[in-house]
């Protein structure tokens, strides 16, 4: 799992990459929700920004290489908005209890180091998962 920065330890590149991509998708989600709420057409938005419709189509397709200027332009052109800045600490927040479907058995009893050992014969039955039957 991802871990918070500690002391002077170097943050793994993968962790930085994950949060970069997450940031892009969060901004994209914000802009696209505004765009859907505005009920504007892509053609209208293109006219407002003085860009070709295919450029707007590409921009709204995925966050891609959006920069701060792109986000500002899009939010303002859609509804005269601007982003609100704040900082959240997602890795400090408490883990949710529903991290997996309730119909999926508790995985903590398994020997995950040797998953192939969990065969049909050795693994608990569904009755045991659900507590309805004796092991």
């Amino acid at each position, binding site marked *: *799992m*991802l871990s918070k920065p500690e002391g002077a330890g170097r943050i*793994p*590149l*993968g*962790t*930085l*990459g*994950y*949060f*970069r*991509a*997450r940031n*892009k*998708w969060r901004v994209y*989600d914000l802009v*696209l*929700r505004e765009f*859907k709420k505005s009920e504007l057409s892509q053609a209208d938005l293109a006219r407002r920004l003085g860009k070709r419709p295919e450029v707007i*189509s*590409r921009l709204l*397709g*995925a*966050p*891609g*290489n959006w920069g701060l200027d792109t986000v500002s332009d899009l939010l303002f052109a859609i509804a005269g908005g601007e982003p609100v800045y704040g900082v959240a600490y*997602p*890795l400090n*927040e*408490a*883990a*949710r209890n*529903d*991290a*997996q*479907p309730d*119909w*999926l*058995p508790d*995985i903590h009893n*398994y020997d*995950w180091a040797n*998953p*192939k050992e*969990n*065969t*049909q014969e050795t*693994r608990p*039955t*569904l*009755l045991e*998962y*659900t507590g*309805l*039957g004796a092991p």
Partner: protein
Amino acid sequence: VGSLKYFRPVEVPDTSQPDSPGFGHPLRERPARYREPPLKLRAAGSFHHPGVSKWLSPWRVGAAERDRGQGCGLLLTGLRYRQERVCLRFAALTYMSIRDEIQNRVAEGRMLHLPHSIPSAERKRDMFVSEEVGQVVMPPWETNVDGLRFSMLRAHLDVFTSGGLISIASDPYSKPKATYMARIDPPADEVWDIRSIDPRPAIRVLGCFAETDLFVALTWEYRMNLGGPDSKEWRDFREKCKAKWRGLFPAYQPFTGETANEYVSENAHVV
């Protein structure tokens, strides 16, 4: 978990003997296939699933006997074989839904539930990944270009599980380049493609829906290795995905929906 129900054996009279009650019945003169219906299945109680409201083959009964003890299904009885005069067999037949199958595959270590990377994030949809996909999307990632790319792919997949707004194309060819998820050709195969196009190199993750909001990611490949839409590489990629599905869920076809909202219930816009 369904409760077990017990059935009384059904007596089927042997009409072949002259002193038997049914001897001389007109049906006796007909070919055996008309006289004796194939594999009649009777069940008490109510259940609704197309998979068990049919005739059963002896093979299925054998499989059911093997799986007996999991106790998640129904007791079905009254099997009557086509070629035998009187043959009643009583078997505990376990009906397993796709969720039961997924549970088993997870327990066997052949699949993995992909939780959101951030434990506090809300779970709106579910994704399971094969061993192959799990190897690249589960941290820790290597400190190189590939590791960086795979971490971004994981963020891409987490958009799905956290219920983020995604674009879906059900037409394999008519879609914007940046569509998040698209069904690939032929649509009847129900193979879906999660398209992580940014940053380069782009990555494609293929998989199938097991039910609404439940995606099973089975295989992945760099887009640059796949060639054009009609290329052999794409075909092999698709067939690999289908083979993996068959290997994991031999008794189930991928989920089929009429509209995009039957695949992703909310926060999806069709392109």
